[in-house]
């Protein structure tokens, strides 16, 4: 009886319910929890648990010695976080990551939008070329990195050979610290296909009447682009901006493959390619320094906080600029 009473009390929240329905809902609830249990287990064991653990480790000297069982884990207070500020490599890595992201995100968005707009204007051939532009997106990052090393090689690479034909002396893309990040950015922009497809879908959804009305009011193409196209696709721009920014901040594979590895594990690895996630990874798994995992955990939490701040700022700023069609109604 007690259970019937309690469910009946809950009943009116959604729908008027009789005894039968509430019993049904009890069963439904039970089934629902059963259905989400795989996720719930994964969330607790592989997300929430590790998150708490990594927060804990970030305040300890956990590292290779503890894994081997030589030493007990010691609480070190905020020492790892202080070290974040003292270690010059953290600053270098942060700056590298920031530079890369600041170059990569606008470049990718601009190229993607340009390609999408051109595709819209070529009629029935656009399906074929959309495939062509999407292809690089299917290239595994390790392969992208190898292509970067080979094609952008300063003396033998085809990129500099091409620039030479135009009488532009090409830089040493893969060894000159100034040019390492631009090389990485160019390869990222090459994989612009996904962003382009999103813009293409957004552009197609812009009602034609708006352009016709604007044209009738005498708006020139640039005005139509600024005052019709951009506002109408702003949700897609906003979405890709967030996704690309996070992808930029957490970028790992291309730079790691091209510039770091057992072969280059010594001091030779170029500082200019040291992305934040690479330094974090090496602290945790490669250097084998005592306390490395505690320090890497602190780095991971700083990364998480940065991503949260960036996303929040984006959301707040977007309230002013992003136009959702539903709002007008």
């Amino acid at each position, binding site marked *: 009886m007690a259970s019937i009473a309690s469910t009946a009390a809950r009943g009116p929240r959604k729908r008027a319910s009789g005894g039968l329905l509430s019993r049904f809902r009890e069963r439904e609830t039970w089934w*629902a929890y059963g259905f989400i249990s*795989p996720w719930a287990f994964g969330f607790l064991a*592989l*997300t929430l648990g590790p998150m708490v653990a990594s927060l804990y480790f970030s305040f300890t000297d956990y590292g290779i010695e503890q894994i081997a069982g030589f030493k007990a884990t010691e609480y070190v207070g905020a020492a790892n976080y202080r070290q974040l500020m003292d270690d010059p490599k953290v600053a270098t890595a942060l700056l590298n990551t920031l530079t890369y992201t600041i170059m990569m995100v606008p470049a990718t968005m601009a190229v993607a939008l340009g390609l999408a707009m051109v595709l819209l204007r070529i009629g029935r051939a656009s399906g074929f070329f959309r495939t062509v532009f999407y292809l690089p997106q299917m290239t595994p990052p*390790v392969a992208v990195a190898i292509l970067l090393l080979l094609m952008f090689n300063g003396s033998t*690479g085809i990129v500099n050979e091409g620039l030479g034909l135009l009488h532009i002396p090409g830089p040493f893309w893969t060894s000159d610290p100034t040019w390492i990040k631009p090389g990485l950015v160019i390869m990222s922009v090459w994989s612009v296909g996904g962003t382009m497809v999103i813009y*293409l879908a957004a552009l197609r959804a812009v009602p034609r009447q708006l352009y016709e009305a604007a044209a009738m009011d005498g708006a020139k193409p640039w005005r139509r682009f600024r005052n019709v196209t951009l506002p109408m696709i702003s949700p897609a721009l906003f979405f890709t901006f967030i996704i690309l920014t996070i992808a930029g901040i957490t970028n790992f*594979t291309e730079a790691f493959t091209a510039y770091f590895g057992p072969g*280059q594990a010594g001091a030779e690895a170029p500082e200019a390619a040291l992305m934040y996630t690479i330094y974090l990874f090496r602290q945790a798994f490669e250097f084998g320094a005592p306390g490395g995992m505690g320090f890497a955990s602190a780095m991971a939490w700083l990364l998480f906080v940065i991503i949260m701040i960036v996303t929040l700022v984006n959301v707040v700023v977007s309230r002013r600029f992003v136009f959702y069609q539903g709002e007008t109604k």
Partner: protein
Amino acid sequence: MSVGAQGGLGPAGTGAGTAPIPQVVVSAPRRLPRGVGRFKQAIFVALVLGLSVLFVYPFLWLVSASFKPQSDTFDNRLIPNVWAWNYDRVFEIAPVATWLFNTVWIAGLGALLTTFSSAIVAFAFAYFRFPGRGLLFALVLATMMLPPQVTMIPTYLIWNELGLVNTQYPLWVPQMFGSAFYIFLQRQFFLGIPRELFEAARIDGDSYWTMFWRIAVPLAKPALIVTFIFEIQAKWFDLMTPLIYLRDAALFTLPLGIKSVLDQFGQGGGGEGEYHVIIAATVILTVPMIIIFAIFQRYFIEGIATQGRKG
């Protein structure tokens, strides 16, 4: 104007397909934007052709270089001057066949597990009404923002505790617990299935499992295929997880294997750089993805486009 207003929704008359998910068919004969005449269109086609070269040339360069002898690798000709078969050598110097096999089964199994576990969870969030649904779904979405680096170290320690570091389990077992992004994607899809279908099944006395398996899953096939191929791609691209967990070369997946070939035979390895071998290995890494794309092209592009529409 009523014809044009449908925009990208629905099969747009190209005969391209009968998939029930909203299509973004580009090639439908539609009116061009105002002011784009034949001449202008020709200019745009020329522009697109020029740009295409930039997007495709790296592939051509790679494949062509893979057929050149070591001395010609960097001659940057499109057609090799002298032809060479470097693929024998690749399989000689490294267990590439094993890596390929490892990657195929890990990616396949992992993608299958992710697809179905995510579908089960997504169905629960789409169909059932239960206490805590909103909060739990918000948690699912929140985990999408979490960078893997935050959970990476403790997760490694768990596997280490289980004695399963340097095995392939950490690469596919976590796929059994659903993945936030796919749960979101599939839930959207399940929500599009008319509720009456399920109500009717319930009146017929079907169990919830039957409703999921016999009604929801078949109808959601496009979303499941999108999940499957996206996850195949993700596994095929992943370097960090195998890098953390695998030590023996016999266990490697292709990305890690090719990375080790690069480290060993590139300039960092101390040799003069056997780049012809590295290039052939890179072709082996890349070609399967191109084939997958050729087969499932529509799903990749629709999957990506839907993702953007929800944003």
